[in-house]
């Protein structure tokens, strides 16, 4: 059942039609249903997020498979770096909730790139080398350009998160 269907099933309008009684028992039952609905919303949201991450990782794997051999692009590219792949998986797990999945690319030097493209002039790209470094560049609207390189150890560096949240407020 989809999140929308579940929300409709437990909508206040529906509940009102079901709980017309005003006895203490009916009020208690109503409270319990409301609590259960809240938990259900959380669980379904969590499931949706997990499915989204799984889909992203499946796409990443497909991209990596196409770039495993030297000269995979016909222009002499290096094969994809396994360490970069591991970093990309780790980064996907740490992306802010609600952010759309990126598109994946392997670059000529074997780095893995994650790109978010909203519309012309609104794009952000990250490159992962497997050396605990994130290089990034973004066009975040008229005249707003950002780029830089940061260490990527435990958490996604703040400038990267900040740029993504500017692109997807």
């Amino acid at each position, binding site marked *: 059942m989809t999140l929308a269907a579940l929300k409709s099933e437990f909508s206040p309008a529906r509940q009102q039609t079901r709980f017309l009684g005003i006895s203490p028992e009916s009020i208690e039952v109503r409270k319990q249903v409301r609590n259960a609905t809240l938990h259900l919303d959380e669980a379904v949201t969590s499931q949706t997020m997990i499915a989204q991450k799984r889909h992203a990782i499946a796409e990443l794997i497909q*991209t990596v498979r*196409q*770039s495993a051999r030297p*000269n*995979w*692009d*016909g*222009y*002499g*590219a*290096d094969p994809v770096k396994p360490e970069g792949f591991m970093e990309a998986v780790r980064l996907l797990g740490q992306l802010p909730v609600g952010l759309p999945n990126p*598109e*994946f*690319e*392997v*670059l*000529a*030097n074997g*780095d893995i*790139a994650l*790109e978010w*493209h909203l519309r*012309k*002039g609104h*794009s952000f*790209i990250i*490159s992962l*080398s497997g050396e605990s470094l994130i*290089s*990034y*560049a*973004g*066009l975040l609207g008229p005249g707003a*350009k950002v*780029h*830089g*390189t940061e260490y990527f150890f435990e958490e996604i560096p703040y400038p990267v998160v900040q740029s993504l949240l500017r692109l997807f407020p």
Partner: protein
Amino acid sequence: MGPILPDEELSRYLFESGKFAATKGRVKPGAFVPAKNGKTSVFRTFGMLEAQNWELGETVAREVQRTLLARAEVHASKVPAPLRIEPSEPPPRHANLIAWPESRDEQLMLALQIAEEARLFLKPTRNVETPR
């Protein structure tokens, strides 16, 4: 061929589906990130008919033993500084985008800017007549 003119079209032939998003009609920045030699190979296609452009792409594809999938086209005037377009024949009409900065993030920024201006052309599929 002579020096590059600002209104020239440059074609980057694409042999790998990860370099473009066909459904969105978009070229990805990675299509322009320089190779290990610090250059991005392009072809000067001004004055060419569409069919001739694809023919040139097929010639390149045979050379590199790949299947041509698409091409990215960008006006020479849209190639941002400090990049330069340097004619580099043979093969005929070949040129390179050169003077890429060393740092990866600056390369990404330039590639992103070129990709924003590039137009994607998918290789047309040939109509095969069904025998009666």
